[in-house]
């Protein structure tokens, strides 16, 4: 962000996020083929329920990541824009956090991630209204898991019940696993050691994940690219995800 030319004294005591431990992501829209593998992988990894056709059509699908695609013009003169996978932007100044009356939507000090504490959530859904990216999903029902799929549940991730809000966690269980592994081996986490499910599944390798506080990491290098844009940057939410466009 450019230096403010007029020196205005800060009158709003804002909570400032520290640099250390910031995880971030870069998504290359030019590489994305819109195959939805990230969506499927995320659902498998994070125990996301299948809501069925009717609810999905009514805007209740629970996916933490969605691939947006837009059309321009009328058929047959249709021009499609790039695919845009949208997930929680893990804002540095997240609008979802202050509005929760019960501290269910909180900022993790260690990973610099917006966390949703399912057990605290009472379901007021204010966080979802205040999220400019519309990436929060709500458990509108207790959806049934058809029989063999119950064996697929990931034991590292909580299964949520009806009435709570949830959203992308940057696969925090994988971050923790890698950190524990590194700690037991007496070393730092290596760049590329933590790969969230969406990045792991992406056949085009359009999603890169890593630490933004490490200037040598691949994700930091890519995020500095001049093709990088952030969604709704003008709102000042300080997203942790950079999209590369038109390289």
């Amino acid at each position: 962000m450019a230096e403010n030319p007029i020196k205005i004294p800060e009158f709003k005591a804002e909570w400032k996020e520290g640099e250390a431990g910031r995880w971030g992501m870069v998504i290359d829209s030019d590489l994305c083929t819109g195959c939805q593998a990230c969506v499927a992988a995320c659902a498998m990894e994070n125990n996301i329920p299948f809501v069925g056709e009717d609810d999905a059509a009514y805007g209740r699908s629970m996916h933490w990541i969605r691939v947006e695609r837009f059309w321009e013009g009328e058929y047959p003169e249709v021009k499609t824009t790039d695919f845009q996978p949208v997930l929680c932007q893990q804002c540095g100044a997240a609008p979802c956090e202050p509005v929760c009356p019960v501290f269910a939507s909180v900022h993790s000090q260690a990973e610099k991630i917006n966390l949703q504490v399912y057990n605290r959530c009472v379901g007021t859904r204010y966080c979802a209204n205040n999220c400019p990216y519309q990436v929060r999903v709500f458990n509108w029902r207790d959806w049934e898991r058809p029989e063999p799929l119950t064996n697929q549940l990931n034991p590292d991730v909580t299964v949520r019940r009806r009435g709570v809000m949830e959203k992308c966690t940057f696969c925090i269980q994988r971050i923790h696993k890698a950190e524990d592994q590194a700690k037991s081996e007496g070393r730092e986490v290596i760049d590329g050691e933590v790969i969230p499910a969406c990045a792991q599944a992406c056949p085009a390798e359009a999603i890169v994940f890593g630490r933004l506080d490490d200037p040598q990491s691949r994700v930091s290098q890519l995020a500095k690219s001049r093709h990088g844009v952030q969604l709704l940057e003008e709102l000042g939410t300080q997203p942790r995800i950079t999209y590369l466009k038109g390289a």
Partner: protein
Amino acid sequence: MTIQAQPISHTHEGHHPNPREYLMLDPKPRGEMNAMVMDAMHATSWRFWVVAAFLGLVVLVCLFGAWGYMIMEGLGVAGVNRPSYWGIFLVNTVFWIGISHAGTFVSALLRVFKAEFRRPFTRAAELMTTFGLVQAGMSIFMHMGRVWLSYWMFPFPNQRQLWTNFHSPLMWDFLAINTYLLASTMYLFLPLIPDLAMARDRSTGWRKIFYRILALGFRGTEGEWTHLRHALGIFAFAILPVMFSVHTIVSWDFAVAMRPGWNSTIFGPYFVVGALHSGIAAVAMVLIVVRATMKNMKYFIRPEHFNALGKLMLIVSMAWAYFFFNDYMVQWYGGDKWTDALLHFHEAGPLGWMWFGMLICNVAIPWLTLWNKKVRTTPGLLFTIGLLINLGMWFERYIIVPISLTINRMPFTWREYVPGVEIPLGIGTLAFFILLYMIASKLIPLVPVWEVQEGQLAHSLRKFGKETVVTVSDLE
């Protein structure tokens, strides 16, 4: 003690109106009036029981039945979705808080300004506040995903070692509504004490026990009256800022959010005026029903009251139009692309008829009709206008909540909201409100008898030459 004298206003035809048209100038002996109010409480026709039984059934099925079903199934049975995470539940919350506002407004503000015509209907209005807030509170609880954990909103020491988040507008809202409910209940109860004592002295059986407990041993000594007047004076002044703050805070739930169409600085006063708009219309509607259905009420509630309330409705309608225009104008002129999309969606979207309906009901109809005294004093017409105003204000809240939520900054998620189980639940709250009101009308004196008697004592007619003059002495 001060005495004011004022001539009775002349009509344009030049003849004097009959002073007996005014309740304050048409006194009855105390005993007779007490008996009239007691009679109104006791006289219960079979129609009352039929209506009460029907409403009870509606409450059982539509409110508790549907709510239980929703709790078991999850909010999926309602129409809320992404992006309309808030739906009719919050529309109804804002609507009921609005209804509850006018009760206090009519009662406290008119008491503070010593408007004498308020005397017979302050209680009817205050009851609306309390019962309206009950519906508003229930609508919020319905809206919550895990209502069984709603007590986590209370700041209390707990084993989870968690305090509540006072940064959240919902927390402000929760505290404001609770404060208002407590304060308005006390404000309802205080002036009720002398009437409960009156009822205690005139009843037998279980009613005697009921009134004896509630009357707190009031005997009517001079000291008790002095304390009561003092307390009422404090409460009437103190509750007004509470009332303004509550609806302002409700509006902040929307106004502080990062959303096109919501993020508006004028929402506070706009919501307060909107609340008064629907609320005063509702007071008039309730009075019309009470007058038509309850015994002896034609003496207490008169065309002069409808006339005064009709004028109030017209003025508030003008104030609402001003705030609406101000809000709309600034948002439209700003030219933000999402706000533009939203305003276009309001007017030309699939529910555009609701936007126009809101303007017709809230502005056009009151402005075209309420300037006329004949319209204001005809109960049937005033009731219809009040109903339309309430419909218009409900539309307004519907436009602000689910319709505005449809449009956000991520067009990929735009999706229409179709209400589901919200509709029976909304009907249930309406039935519950009416049922509570009906039960209350049989349990407590709906007319503050002592206030009417006090007013009648303070008023007298005198002749100065050929001019009949009303003198009002200030009892405090």
